């Protein structure tokens, strides 16, 4: 690839990186519950995407869906290699700031932890549809493309996922 083409590719991919790095990291983190592992898998996601992007002359039809697919596959591979050890590493436990209202902050964080833990326990499809739509703000058509499903299937899944999550949280 010529120098000019390479610079252009880097510029475009740089924008893709800036646009999606937070969301891809969050997506992976909510599945693996470890900052260290999430960082590793997220770097690998972008590295693989960059390689494909370069090879295909900047032609990735839907970068967002492509990144989510790679991230998802890397998470699956990670669990296959390591075994599905549902652990929460110490580095993702929030640390209270002693300068703020302790009670308020710890209530909010405990709520968030409850939701996060319940989310991790959901089956993959339910987990993903909630993360993509409610946390990462993808529209239903975008979620459908990322998960390779029809929009109708995504709506049904979202409805069922919320119901199951609500029951789990109310039971906890």
């Amino acid at each position, binding site marked *: 690839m010529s120098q000019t083409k390479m610079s252009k590719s880097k510029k475009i991919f740089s924008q893709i990186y800036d646009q999606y790095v937070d969301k891809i990291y*969050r997506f992976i983190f909510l599945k693996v519950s470890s900052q260290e592992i999430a*960082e590793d898998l997220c770097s690998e996601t972008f590295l693989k995407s960059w390689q494909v992007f370069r090879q295909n002359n900047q032609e990735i039809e839907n970068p967002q869906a492509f990144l989510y697919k790679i991230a998802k596959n890397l998470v699956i591979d990670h669990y296959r290699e390591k075994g599905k050890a549902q652990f929460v590493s110490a580095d993702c436990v929030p640390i209270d700031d002693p300068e703020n209202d302790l009670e308020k902050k710890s209530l909010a964080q405990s709520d968030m932890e409850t939701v996060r833990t319940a989310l991790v326990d959901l089956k993959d499809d339910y987990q993903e549809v909630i993360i993509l739509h*409610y946390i990462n703000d993808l529209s239903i058509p975008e979620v459908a493309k990322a998960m390779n499903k029809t929009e*109708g299937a995504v709506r*049904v899944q979202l*409805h069922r996922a919320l119901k199951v999550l*609500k029951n789990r949280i109310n039971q906890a």
Partner: protein
Amino acid sequence: MNEKELIAKIRELRQIKPREDWVLFTKKELFKEESKKGTEFLLKLKRNSVPFLSDFFSSAFQIAFHHKPAFAFLVVLLVLIGVFGFAQNSIPGDSLFSLRKIGEKSQGIFVSPKDQVKANLGLVSKRLDDLEKIVETNSMKNLASALTEYQESVSKAVQGLAKAEPKEIIEEVKKLEEKTERIKSYGIEIEESQEFENALAKIVEREIENLANRDLDKEQAGLLEEIKEAYEVGQYSQALEKILIISNNE
């Protein structure tokens, strides 16, 4: 915990973000070999960007009008394209905003009647984006114009809305609802359009009637009750979403 509270709690997980230094480090590592050269080049361009651009334009005009008259038309055309391009970033109250509106109207010519409702809702969304930009850039002098433009876009969007199918409009309606809530949270008073709400209510009423006359399974019947509840409290976009779930479940 009801559904709305649950969704609010889920959304709090957006606080999960990667470490900033990790983000920067990873980006650098991706382009390791040429990153230094690229960064140096970009820094040079940024530092000199204003004189660079003004030198470029002044040279271009000199060549066009003194040496190559045939290029004069091309230069004027390029300038016009550039001006229209800048106009895209204008907001209501700016001098270039009228150009932007002309551009939006001309795009509307190519929209089929079937997609007109969706396109009109898209324009409302753009006016809400303008309002958000005003807050972000603290351009309060543009606020009055932006609110007027927003209200005009809503009045236009109401035309034909009541006859639309839920699946055609749900994504746009949800986006509008989220954007409106966000702007209200900044302290900007956005008047709810009763006509808009009435149009959405008509769609939901029509669909409730259709669903009530059909054979529904247990899950669908449960959803219909939720739709009626949402309709009663005026949560029309929630009602529309559940209507779509029933349609997609068939």
